[in-house]
Structures are given as C-alpha cells and as structure tokens.
C-alpha cells in the first residue's frame, strides 16, 4: 500500500464544486456542472490509473480527525473500491449532462446538491473507517431526498418519507453495530477504533454478539441494495424521482449496498455469513425471480425498469454471498455492468418521456419508427439488460452464476429462471414502446431523434458495454491477484 | 471535628429542597430563589470536597459559580421584569407563548 495525498483531491474537488455552484449564473449551470464533473472524472481516472495497472497495489491516506474516539479520515483506494469510484465518476458526468427541468428550476441547488452527492459517494467508497463510512453513507440521503422532493413528480411526499425511514432504520442499526464492534475492540485491546483494519481482528470471533452486529450491517445494506423483503421503498422512489436521481440511485447508490457487503460485511463476519449462507443465497435468488415477476405485471415503464434493477442486483448479491475471491470479482463486474446498463436505460427512457406526455405503458406504441436511432440504442441497452452474450452484463452474470453454482446449485438454477423472465419483461418494455402502430397525436411537437450530447454519450456507453463484453480482462485482470 | 460527610448531607438536603421548590412553585421569583439555593448547595459541596482533597480547585470553582450566579440572577430577574411587563404575571404556568 502506498501512501498518497491524491485521494483527498477526490473529496475536495466535488466539495469545491458544490460550494462554487452558488456563485455561477443560472444559465451556465449545465456547462459548469459538466466541467466540474468531467474534471472530477479525469481526476478519478488519474488517481485510479496506478491502482488498476499495478495489480494488487492500492492507495492509502490517513488524516487525523477525532483519533481519541477511533475516528480517522483513512481513505483507501484498492482494487475493490476503484471500480465503484470510477463508475460513480463516469455516471455523474453523464447524468449532469442530461437536460431537464432541474436546469430550469432551483438550478443552483441542483448542481450544489449533485456535487455534494458525488462528494459523499466518494467518501463512502473511499473510507476505510466505519464511522466515517457511516457518516458519508448517511450524507448521501440529503441530496437524494432533496432531489426527489424538489424535482420529483407530484406524488412524491409519501415515497420520500418511506425512503428516508427505511434507509434510516437500517443504517441506524448499522451505527449501533459499528459502536458495538469498536467497543468489543476496546475490550480486547484497550483502544477505541473504528478502523476496518483494526476491527478485522475481531472477525474470527464467533459469538452471538457478532451475529447481532452482522444483522445490523445486513439490514442496512440489504435495504440499500435492495434484497427481497426490504425493497418496498424502491419502486415509488424510482418512479417519482427525476431522471438524474433515479440513475444515481440505481447505478451508484445500490452499489453502495453491494460495496458495503463486499468491503465490510464479508471480511468482518465470515462466520456469520457462512452460517446463514443458505438463507442469504435463497434471498438473493428469490429477489431475482420475484422482482422479475413484478416487472412482468408493471404498467409504468419506469416501474418496470426499477423492478428489473432489483432483479439484476439479486444476481450481484448471489455472487457476493457465494463468498470467495472469484465470486466477489464477478459480483463487482456485474455491478459495474449493471450500473452502465441502468444508466443507458433510464437515460433513454427519460429522453422518450420528454418526447411524450402520457407515461402509462399502454399509451406508447410505434415510437421506433419515429425515433429510429434512439430506439436502436435502447434496443442494445435492452439486450445488455437481458445479458445477451457479447455484452458486459453477460460476462458478469455468467461469472456470478458459474461461481455460485458450486455453492448452491438450487439457488443458481432459480436465479437462472430469472434470466428467462428477464427476456420476457425487457422485450415487453421495448415492444410496447417501440413497436406497433404509432399514433402521431401522442408525440410532442418538437420531437426529434436523439442527437448531440445525448447521442455521443449513449453511443460511448454502449460501445463500452460491448467492448467490455469481449474484453473484460481490464476488470478481471486487476482483481485476480488480490 | 465534624465529619465532612455531614456537610455533604446538608448540601444534598438543601439542593433537593431547592429542586422541589423549582418544581412545584410557580412564582418565577421563588423559582429563581430556589435555583440560588441549589447553587449554594453545590458550592458547599465544592468547598467540602476541596477540603477533602487538600486542593484549592473547589474554591476557585465556587468563585466562578458565584460570578455566574450573580450574572444569572441579574439576567433572570431582568427577564422576569420584562415578562411581567408584557404578561402582567410572574406565574410560570401562564407563560406558554412558545409552546404552540
């Protein structure tokens, strides 16, 4: 591990962007946001580059903060977190380029919140101190709730409340667990510490207390991902949120849960996971199928996409709970690919909605003829979502399943059935929107095909999805030697 | 010589009497007086412990408490006057403007 000062830049820059946003005129907010986020992405690449190329090498940086309480700003960029940080940098850059009402109403607040969000996401992914992780994990809510609340659709109040409640409920239990863990560490060594490296010394203990702590962590992350019985908040929030918030949630925030499982729960509670592995795998597999069923009957396309998100994250969790280095890597690969795919799908769906007034799935038809290029892009996105071989998702899903199979054949097969239903609902989604006879009355006056920034970005992402579908070694190579 | 714990018992008793006064008296002036009682009780225990520990920190604390008490009663009485002037009462139950 190399000590590096660059990691703080990943936190300072978005924070700076968040503050400066208040001094930028409204009209140039989009350019400003784009600029800040592109620089941010470039920074991420610059910092992450050595981590990716030098396999197994990570960057580390520790700043003192409240050392007496065991709280330090210890940042760590290793082969696990680097992909999530990269993904969030990329997604943020794309999302901030989207046009929409958030660049017309309360614009300064939007950019400021967006960069605060990036700041807290980066802090959460980088921190290896549990308390700091918790703080940034919670800080993510603030911009998220504001975004849903201010730029969301009309029926948002209740969903925001539930979203907050569920997430807060989970994470507060995690906080208790963190405190208890550091207390246990104190009992053992006489020092308070919430650093992951220190707490890992507790991981070989197998006591009921550890099981309870595991439950606290599990609940927090399972709600965030979300896993089957904890997904109740998701649909309403995704549907009501403005497109950038939806994309952030499904592409990045859900990964925060996955990351939490990989980074903290896995190493801290190996015994607890192993003893509950059957149930966990079953939950993951059931999530896949259950969400697929919900997606099949969904009327609203955005609801369909959000259910499909749950379904795919079920695959990710299947990989995470299978344990083992390869399964972990597979889960990360699938996370990244799911992030890219959901980015494409929600992005394109937003473009379609902008060209339409009504949002019920029945109200669309035959748009492929009207917006051919947009729908070609959407089709490739759909193919990636059903994880057709040759797309990045296939690599992830295949690896996850092949590594989950020796652990639990039954759960793997169950999840595999989800693949079939995935085809059913995604094709339904595409066909309802694109095929059939189009009625011109539904299309807004100034409806043009996708072009400009949208087209460039979408083509770029799709190219990435296909390129990584054949050349995933970048992701796999850097992670095998860990 | 008398045992220090006796002093402490006196301090405790006076403190609790002051507390009772604060709790069930409603006249703000008497409430403030009861607060003074409690402060005095604490001062007494400070001095006692100071003697017990052979240290002078207790005396210093008492000095500071006295200054703070003086300031507090000045401000408190000023508040009472201001309140009385607007509400025409010194009864704490009548003063509920901030509640709703």
């Amino acid at each position, binding site marked *: 591990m190399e000590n590096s000062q660059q990691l703080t830049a990943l936190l300072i820059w978005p924070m700076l962007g968040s503050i400066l946003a208040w001094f930028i005129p409204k009209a140039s907010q989009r350019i400003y946001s784009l600029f800040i986020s592109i620089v941010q992405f470039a920074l991420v690449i610059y910092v992450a580059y050595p981590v990716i190329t030098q396999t197994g090498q990570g960057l580390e940086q520790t700043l003192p903060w409240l050392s007496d309480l065991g709280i330090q700003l210890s940042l760590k960029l290793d082969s696990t977190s680097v992909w999530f940080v990269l993904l969030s940098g990329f997604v943020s850059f794309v999302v901030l380029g989207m046009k929409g009402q958030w660049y017309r109403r309360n614009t300064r607040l939007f950019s400021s919140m967006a960069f605060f969000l990036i700041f807290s996401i980066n802090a959460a992914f980088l921190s290896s101190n549990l308390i700091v992780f918790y703080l940034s994990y919670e800080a993510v809510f603030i911009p998220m709730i504001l975004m849903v609340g201010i730029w969301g659709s009309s029926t948002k109040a209740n969903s925001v409340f539930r979203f907050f409640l569920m997430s807060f409920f989970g994470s507060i239990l995690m906080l208790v667990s963190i405190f208890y863990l550091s207390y246990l560490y104190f009992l053992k060594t006489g020092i308070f510490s919430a650093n992951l490296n220190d707490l890992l010394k507790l991981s070989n203990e197998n006591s009921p207390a550890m099981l309870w702590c595991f439950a606290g962590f599990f609940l927090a992350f399972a709600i965030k991902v979300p896993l089957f019985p904890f997904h109740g908040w998701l649909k309403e929030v995704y549907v009501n949120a403005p497109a950038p918030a939806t994309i952030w949630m499904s592409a990045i925030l859900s990964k925060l849960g996955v990351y939490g499982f990989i980074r903290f729960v896995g190493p801290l509670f190996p015994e607890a996971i192993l003893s509950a592995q059957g149930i966990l795998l079953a939950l993951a597999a059931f999530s896949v199928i259950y969400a697929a069923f919900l997606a099949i009957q969904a009327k609203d396309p955005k609801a369909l996409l959000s259910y499909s998100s749950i379904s795919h994250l079920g695959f990710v969790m299947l990989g995470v709970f299978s344990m083992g280095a390869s399964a972990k890597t597979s889960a990360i690969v699938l996370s990244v690919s799911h992030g890219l795919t959901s980015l494409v799908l929600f992005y394109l769906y937003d473009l379609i909605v902008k060209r339409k007034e009504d949002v019920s799935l029945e109200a669309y038809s035959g748009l492929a003829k009207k917006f051919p290029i947009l729908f070609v892009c959407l089709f490739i996105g759909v193919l990636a979502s059903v994880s057709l071989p040759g797309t990045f998702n296939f690599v992830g899903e295949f690896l996850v399943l092949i590594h989950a*199979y020796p652990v639990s054949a039954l759960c793997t097969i169950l999840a595999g059935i989800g693949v079939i239903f995935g085809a059913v609902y995604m094709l339904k989604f595409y066909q309802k929107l694109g095929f059939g006879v189009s009625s011109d009355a539904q299309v807004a006056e100034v409806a043009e095909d996708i072009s400009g920034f949208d087209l460039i970005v979408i083509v770029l992402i799709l190219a990435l999805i296909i390129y990584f579908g054949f050349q995933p070694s970048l992701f796999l190579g850097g992670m095998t030697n860990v | 010589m008398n045992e220090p714990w006796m002093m402490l018992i006196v301090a405790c008793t006076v403190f609790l009497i002051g507390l009772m006064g604060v709790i069930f008296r409603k006249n703000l002036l008497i409430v403030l007086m009861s607060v003074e009682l409690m402060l005095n009780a604490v001062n007494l225990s400070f001095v006692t412990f100071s003697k017990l520990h052979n240290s002078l920190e207790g005396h210093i604390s008492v000095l500071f408490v006295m200054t703070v008490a003086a300031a507090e009663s000045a401000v408190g009485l000023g508040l009472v006057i201001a309140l009385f002037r607007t509400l025409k009462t010194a009864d*704490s*139950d009548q003063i509920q403007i901030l509640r709703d």
Partner: protein
Amino acid sequence: MNLLLIVLFPFFGFMINGFMQLRSLKTGHKISSKQSGSIATFAMVLSFITAIYYFIQFSGQQEDGRLIEQNLFSWIKLGAFHVDFSLRLDSLSLLFTMIITGVGSLIHLYSIGYMKEDETPAKYFSYLNLFCFMMLNLVLGATMPHIFLGWEGVGLASYLLIGYWNQDTAKVGAGQKAFVMNRIGDLGFLIAMFIAYKYVGSLDLVDLQKATLSPKIASVVGLLVFFACTGKSAQIPLFTWLPDAMAGPTPVSALIHAATMVTSGIYLLTRISPLLLQAPDVLSVIAMVGVTTAFVSAVIACAQKDIKKILAYSTVSQLGFMFLACGVGAFDAGVFHVMTHAFFKALMFLGAGSVIHALHEEQNIFKMGGLSRKLPITTFTFVMGWAAILGLPPFSGFFSKDEIIIQSLHSQYGNQILFIMALASALLTAFYMTRLLVLVFFSPSRMEKETEEHAHESPLVMTLPLIALAILSLVGGFMHHSEGGHEEGQSIMIASVVVALIGAAFAFFRYRKFDKEEMTNQFVEKGLGIDVFYNKFFGNGVPLLAKGLSKWIEEYFIQNSMKFCTWMVEFSGSVLKSFQVGSMQVYLLMMVVFGLAFMIWILESVMQGVIFYGK
C-alpha cells in the same frame, strides 16, 4: 487465409447495411433492395469462397489433420476460470459453415427479389447478415460460452427477423415467443455449462469431448444440453414457437427456420457426442423425443391450411428425424440429413415464397391451385424438393432419411418402436407434402379472379436460387460416403420408399380434384392443443402469478409492512408528543424521575463492577 474472414465478412455486411440504414433514416434517402442486397450477398459469397478454400485444403488431408484452430483473444479469465475467444474448424463445422454460407448466399440473393417492395431493405439485410455472423460463431466457436454467444445471437437475429414487420404486434409477439422459448432452453445450456465446469474444469469443447464423467453427471449434462436443443431446434416440449415464427419474411423462414438455426441443436449434440455416448439413457430419451416430435408434428402438418405452416411443421418433423438419428447414436446420419434437409427445405420455403409473392401474400393453400402453368420454374423446382423430402431415389432425401430409418432399427440403440414410428412419420410426410403440392400446383384453381390474373413467375434473382437448390437437392445425396452396406438395409430402403409412395398416392387421389376448403379437425390444426395449453398455462399463468404476487405479497405484505413502519413512527411520535405538556415544572419533574432512575442504574452498575471508573 484467415479463419476469421469467414466470420468477418457477414459482420462487415451487417455493419455496412446497418449504417446505411441509419444514415438513410437521417437523410431520408432511400436505399433499394438491390443496393443493400448485393452488399449482403457479396459478403456471404466471399464467406462461402473462404469456406470452399478450407474445404479444398481439408480434402487434401487425412482425417486427423482436418483441424484448424485460431485463438483470437482471451475472453474471460478469472482465477481458474478461463475461456478463450477462439475459432476452430473441423469437418463438422466446415460442413455447417458450407451450408450456412452456401445456402445463405442463395437465400440472400433470393431476398433481393423478394424484398424489392419493402421500405427498409437495408435493415432486413443487415439483420440477415447479423444472423449469419452469429450462426458462424455458433459453429466455429471452440468453447461452450462462444457457442452460447452464437446460440443467443441467432436467437436475437431470429427475434428481429420474425418481428421484422414490427408495426404488426402479432408478428412481434411471435418473435418474442420464439425468443423466450429459446431462452427457456438456453437456461439448460447455461446450467449444463456450470455443471460441466464444475466437474471438468474447462469449457473448451475438446476437453469436454475427452472428459470421462460419471454416468450420472454425463446424463444430467446431456439432458440439459438436449433441453437447450429442444428450444433451438423446436422439439417437444418447446416446438410451438416455430410455426408462429412463420410471421417473418419467407426467405427468413427458409434460412433460419429451416436450413440453419434450427439445426444447431443437432450440431451441438454431435459436438458433445462423446459425452452423450457415456449416458445411454439420455440417448434413448433423445431418440424418443425426436421420433415423437417427428410423428406428432407430421400429424399436425396434415391439418394445416397455411402453406408456410405446413412447411414449418414439416421442418419440426424432419428435425425430429435428425434427433432420432442422434438418439440412436448415428450422429453422422443426423448431420447428413441436416445438409440434405437444408437443401430441399430451403428450396421448398423459397418456392412457397415465390408462390406467396406471386399471389400477393396469400398463404392459404385452399385459395391456390393450378399454379403449375403460371409458375413453371417454381413448380418444377418444388417438385424436386417434394421428391427429396419424400425420399424417392435418387434424390438427396432418399439417402439421408433412409439412413436414419435403417439406423433406428439396426443401431446399437435402435429398436422396433422407433423404427415403426419413424416409418409412420415418413408415411405422413409423404401425405401432407403431396397434399401441399397437389393443392397448390396441380388441382383446379380456387383463386380469386384478380389474384389469378396477376400471378406471374418470379424474376430471375428469385428463380436462380431455386434452380441451384433444386440441383443440390438432386445431387446432395451423393456427397456423403455412406458406409451402409447393411444386408437388411436393402429391404428397409424399399419399404420406406413404398410407404412414401403409398402416402403420396393417397394424397394425390384425395386432393386431385379438390375445389373447396377442407374441413380440417380444429384440434389438430391448432397443434393438438399443445400451443393452446402453453398459452393458457404459461401465457396466462405467468401474468396471473405476477399479478397475484404483486397483489398478495407486494401490496399486502411488503407495502403494508412499510405502511406499518410509517404508522409506527407517527404513532410513537404522537405518544411522545403527549409528554410535551408545555409546563416547565412537569419537564423538571420528569427530569428528576428519569434522572433518579438513571442514577440508580449507574450506581448499581458501579457497585456490581459492571462499569469501572478511573483508578
């Protein structure tokens, strides 16, 4: 020469046509089918020439020298798991490559004429090229995931082409049905890969062929792969998508749903035949399923009225024959039949396309008749195809089909039941094919006046492939060096020809003078209720289950528990609110009471030593 070229030519065709299509959408400039079709056809022909080059190279070599491997790049490498992206050409894949590129070229050529009036021919040809690209990946892939790539890719192309006229939601639905049913089979493929990886440790086909597994594992893998094949090759229980797939343009049916894609199941089974031979139980299952499919779909075909549906069921039936061959261990015979079937079934589909083209999208055979005068070339070539599928000597079908029938009795795994059912299927085949032939071309005309007047022979682009395929149907049988010198073979051969002739004669006399619509059994026409059952059970069942889940679990359980949580928060808030009476004294009293309780607790803890303070 590079092996990659075979694959790349169609890919370039796909890219060029795709971009042309997208550009034309932007500019509004129309692309004629001649333009885009010639690019696509040229790509296929180039690919075919490359394949011929390898064919020549192979024929100069010994049996064991016929192997070319080309490792392109490392695809997925994670820990112990490693899959290369590599192409491998041996005799089997060369044969398939020849069929795909050869028949493919002809069908591309034919499509130029057939899609002349279509609005977006570039899109069509790019899809067609995409299909060939994927299909070539399927047969040239050296590893299971690579085959799976092609396997899913052809499914995708099939989906796109079935629903090519995507303004019609019914056609799109047929495409979706095909895709989903294929995916059901693909699940078997996936799981087979997982098991194979677990027990073999590699997904390279060579390793799989060499592997010796316990009979149990081999059976499971074999069954799963076979399940995948039933999806792709339309066997019981997953065959019902194929008749619906006829919604696509007819050349597509010829290429994808007769000649190439549907035979990939045979290819796959032949590829892993060493594994299958370790599990005789699976072989007998394959044989039984194959022969049952052959028989059942032949029965259904007898009651169809739509010319393409008859051919579709006929394809299912013939595929059943091929599986029967695989099931009795005669993989060679199966592959041989794949080839001959590709010739004559493509021929018949294209002929049917020619007829449909001439009659302006009329597909009901009871509204045709007497077309032999109007469409002489089509008629002539169709008869060749007919003779081939009936197995009349010396047409190609004779050699391949009889080989299968002989093997079904005489092979190590054959038995009487298989033999009799195969023979019965052959009889039915002869019947429905003759029925089709007679009703379309020779019986009195039942067409409407207007249609009849407009009926004309197709242009040369379309008849040329017909003629080429007719010649291939005639001589295709001699391409195979059958070692069959069975003594008993002679009698069976004669028997099967006689059976075919009986069926043909029966149909001929029944339909020769037919001038009204036949009252067919609705139950049989609707596919023996299997499709209806699937629609009822899965088509309605899955949405019903989804609705039920969303209503009972999602709404009542999940959402209500969410509501309960929010209610809990609100309730506890209202309870705690009642403590806020607004009287300072009450707050103080509460402070005292709780402070007292807390202090007692602390003191107790200190006394008991639970909490220790600084010493």
